[in-house]
């Protein structure tokens, strides 16, 4: 029987951990060294539940840098670089899909 305290996380493919940076709210991704990067390409990739839970533990322990960490599905480019796997995450990577008012 599974303990209710045992955490579950269903991982179905390459997954990165992303959050918003505390100071300015911009999207950041957890790197393999436990830091945060503004580009998803430098994100650490987990492929199993245990790996992603470990990444989330690292992320949650650093809430003074980034907040609201969560696992996000990724796809891997030919060179293994992670890229966003859905529209929401693509928008978080590239910003609004519209021209901002007043932009040249």
């Amino acid at each position: 029987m599974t303990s209710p305290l045992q955490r579950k996380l269903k991982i179905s493919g390459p997954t990165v951990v992303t959050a918003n940076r505390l100071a300015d709210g911009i999207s950041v991704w957890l790197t393999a060294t436990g830091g945060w990067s503004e580009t998803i390409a430098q994100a650490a990739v987990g492929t199993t539940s245990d790996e992603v839970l470990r990444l989330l533990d690292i992320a949650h322990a650093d809430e003074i840098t980034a907040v609201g960490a969560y696992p996000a599905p990724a796809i891997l480019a030919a060179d293994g670089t992670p890229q966003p796997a859905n529209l929401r995450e693509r928008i978080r990577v590239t910003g609004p899909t519209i021209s901002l008012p007043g932009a040249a």
Partner: protein
Amino acid sequence: MYVYDEFDRTFLQERVAEFRDQVARRLSGELNEEEFKPLRLMNGVYLQLHAYMLRVCIPYGTLSSQQLRALGAVARKYDRGYGHFTTRQNIQFNWIKLNELPDAMADLAKVGIHGLQTSGNCIRNTTTDPWAGAAADEVEDPRLYAEVIRQWSTLHPEFTYLPRKFKIAITAAKHDRAAIRVHDIGLRLHKRDGETGFEVMVGGGLGRSPFIGKTIKDFLPKEHLLSYLEAVLRTYNLGGRRDNIYKARIKIQVHEMGAEAFAKKVEAEWAEIRDGALKLDEAALDAIRDRFQIPDLEALDDQPAELASALATDDAFARWHANSVAPHKAKGHAIVTLSLKPVGAPPGDATADQMDAIADLADQYAYGEIRVAHEQNLTFPYVRQKDLPALWAKLKAIGVATPNVGLLTDIISCPGLDYCSLANTRSIPIAQKLTERFADEARIADIGRLHVNISGCINACGHHHVGHIGILGVEKKDEEFFQITLGGKGNSKARIGELIGPAVAESEIVDVVESLVDTYLNLRTSPAETFVAAVERLGIEPFKERAYAPR
């Protein structure tokens, strides 16, 4: 304009200082996110998809030119040079950094504005008619009572942790321009036997469970406004559900109890407190009334020569005048709506430069006062008719004179997935494409009154349920689809729109809307029959048939 007294000014400064300390403690790690989040929300600070978002309260939608300039300055100094006016008469800044928020708030506090009551489970900013004080069809200026409610509700100790957010709207006009029937409490000011009072509606709201508010009191004498509101809020605070966030709004409580049973509970509570400290006397109302600065309008005649000449000689001006200018209760004056819906732009956005220019024009032509409408437009409530041609030329030059007010391209839209962390789909690009498809001003004028509302998720911030055409974004396997409802209305005859069928793909939605409009044009009895009237007469079937026909 209501002018804050020393108490209000001191309170705002203290609040900014408190928030500055909270931010410093968060950045130092003294406060963790769980502790900080409710504190920032109490000041209107959200964390969205890409950045912090500051929602600034514009009490009952009334701004002075000085305040609008301050908003423009915040947009320029702390944000990316623009702001977004919302359906609750507020403004949002999308890109503010956490450590700069206290400075931005301090700048706003200097002109008496803030982010209180724009977030969290409290009584939110009371909204009202953007034409208040100017409309020819109103009983009296409802902002007096909106300000009474503001003073009662701000930091109300008993109602700071309600089951969910709580929104009140008030109108005093025959035509409801505040969508009061889709608010938690809707108040309609009217007169009975010479006495002023309120019809009180409760339990309206949109979101995932839309309801039209139900009248629980036909006539509440004005002196009892606060005691009765307190009784309603107390009934909700004690009985509203806290076990399920999706069932925590008062609309669910009223629906589950029944309006009659809810009203009985309110009456019982009210009987205990109605003649207590909350009873409003004339002296209290006068004290608040005296702090409103009402412009001393000139004695003028209607249809001055300058206006008649421009109407006769300039078709573009005449089209704008017919669309964006409304009758005023004072002769020789007019109410002017500034469209924030230019073709191809995000609905409700204004740049800092536009805000400055609008503030200058308000000073020059509109007694320095601006209103925010829930349709995400701005209004000048006091304009001399003789100034309309000159004002139009200047509004046009800054891009806020598109003659589409109330027409198809006057789209109400939420920010959607381009900004919002809750959204499932984008909204703004759909609005942009629709405005481009229907860019022809003569065409939309011929189509006539048609409200299109777009929401990027079921939370319904774009009020799609009450759009004549409502569009709701849903995500299926990472693709954007859009459900369509027809026949919704947010006015005094409010009703929830009817779903016409399966969601359509993003690539088809503009074509589908166009086919709905073409169906209407083919079937209307005359141009006098509006789109929504045709839907009511015909039902959704003929529209549905065309919407899903092969193209």
